[in-house]
């Protein structure tokens, strides 16, 4: 009994702090990744051959850029873009320092996921709206994004869970978070109970997020 009490008193505040750090990193980087990734995904769709803004050059450049960024493992990217990170947020450590590489890692991922989600939209519906004299920007919003909502939500759920995984490595630049906690206490200090609790929290977190994602997607899917 006293052991548990000791754990609660000694470690719970740290765990709580880590949870907050993870949430900060995930929410901020998700927000910015979506703001960058979603338009990028739309642009990838629109510049494809045969689509509204068909442009081979733009499509090729975006396509290659997205592929390059996606092929660098996060742990390498984290250090690879240190100077860039410093340039953007003025520091390369702490939560701020972790968020930039997280965005650089997640945004192209989201772009690709969004591209795939939007590709699923029946091109016939888009053609029908074109035939009715509807402007392209309205088609993007009222047809493409609307019809792709279920896939967009599922894609974002995947991106979100990947981001949580990414934050585990953010400890390497001193950003803290659940992954860092599990590593420092569980691995370096042999306090396995901290590791267990952390892992348990992560499992519950991922399960919940996936369920919410699935429910939301099902709600918007009407066929």
């Amino acid at each position, binding site marked *: 009994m006293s052991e548990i009490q000791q754990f609660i008193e000694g470690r719970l505040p740290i765990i709580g702090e880590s949870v907050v750090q993870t949430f900060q990193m995930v929410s901020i980087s998700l927000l910015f990744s979506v703001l960058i990734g979603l338009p990028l995904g739309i642009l990838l769709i629109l510049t494809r051959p045969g689509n509204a803004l068909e442009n081979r050059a733009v499509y090729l450049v975006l396509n290659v850029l997205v592929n390059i960024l996606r092929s660098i493992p996060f742990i390498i990217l984290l250090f690879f873009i240190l100077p860039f990170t410093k340039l953007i947020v003025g520091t390369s450590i702490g939560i701020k320092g972790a968020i930039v590489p997280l965005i650089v890692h997640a945004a192209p991922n989201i772009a690709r996921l969004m591209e795939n989600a939007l590709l699923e939209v*029946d091109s*016939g*519906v888009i*053609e*029908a*709206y*074109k*035939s*009715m*004299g*509807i*402007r392209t920007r*309205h088609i993007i919003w*009222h*047809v493409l994004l*609307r*019809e792709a*909502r*279920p896939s967009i939500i599922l894609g974002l759920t995947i991106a979100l869970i990947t981001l949580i995984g990414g934050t585990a490595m953010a400890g390497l630049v001193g950003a803290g978070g659940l992954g860092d906690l599990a590593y420092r206490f569980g691995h370096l200090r042999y306090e396995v109970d901290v590791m267990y609790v952390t892992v348990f929290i992560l499992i519950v977190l991922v399960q919940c997020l996936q369920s919410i994602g699935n429910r939301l997607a099902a709600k*918007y*899917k*009407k*066929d």
Partner: protein
Amino acid sequence: MIKLTSVSKSFQTKKGTVHAIDDVSLEVAKGEIFGVIGYSGAGKSTLIRCVNLLESPTTGSVMIKDQDVTNVSAEELLQVRRKIGMIFQGFNLLKTATVYDNIAIPLKLTDVDKQEIDQRVRKYLQIVGLEDKHEAYPGQLSGGQKQRVAIARALAQEPEILLSDEATSALDPETTESILELLLKINQEFGITIMLITHEMNVIQKICDRVAVMEKGKVIEQGKTIDIYARPTHPTTRRFVNSTYHKELPPHVLRELIQTGPVVRLTFVGESSSKPVLASVSAKFQVSPNILAGGIIALKQETIGALVVHLHGEKEETARAIAYLEEQGVKVEGVEVTYV
């Protein structure tokens, strides 16, 4: 209403240039239903997309109500398209929107005011007979109902022209019938000019005033539906016309019959259909006509009858019988073993 002049459209593919449409000219008059028929790959789909510039023709001009739309600005094109409704084989409705919203959203996006939108949605859903389906999603509807929603969506834009891209091809015969009746009603009650493409001759037969037959990107024959039925000249046209009778003779039967006299196809149009000509043939000549197959086709305005008859008798007598039939205004054609 719609005038295509020397319209051609070619695509660049890996295998070279494909001429989807090759120098097509046709004119659709105000208030008529004009059909374009052809097998898959004949270019009819590309042709109908040239009318509202979903495909821009490589050469040639497209006139809508005396306005050349091939060179208009993007903004003008939006306005032109808003006057042309279009329905599709795949219905193309928003899966995530209710029937009501499927009709309301395009209206909202074309700046129709709110009250007007509600009025129009209700009005046109009633016209297509779906007034009780406002809140249903397309996934809950049958194919025929989905097409009705698509028609209501097109009508709600209050267009002067309706383009139909194989609108009945994904539907069963009974549903096809009801959709065709709806199109006919729209044409007659609202005076909307309809241009449709199809590969089904019964669509042409039931509702089209005029028809163009397409093959390999070219229009090989066009004219009034009755004339195409009565006097198809191109082999492909004949094949389409014959497909409506659904009565083709097995070649071996035909070969056997020909030993004792010719097998002919008789087409009766207008007056000739009411005279008992076959009876007179057997009375006047040493020929006994034997009816092998036949049918009457009700076109939109007229009826046309066709019989495949074996004329049993001596060569001279049968020749005289055929001459007599032609005199009476019946069209006589030999039935060739090869294409029956």
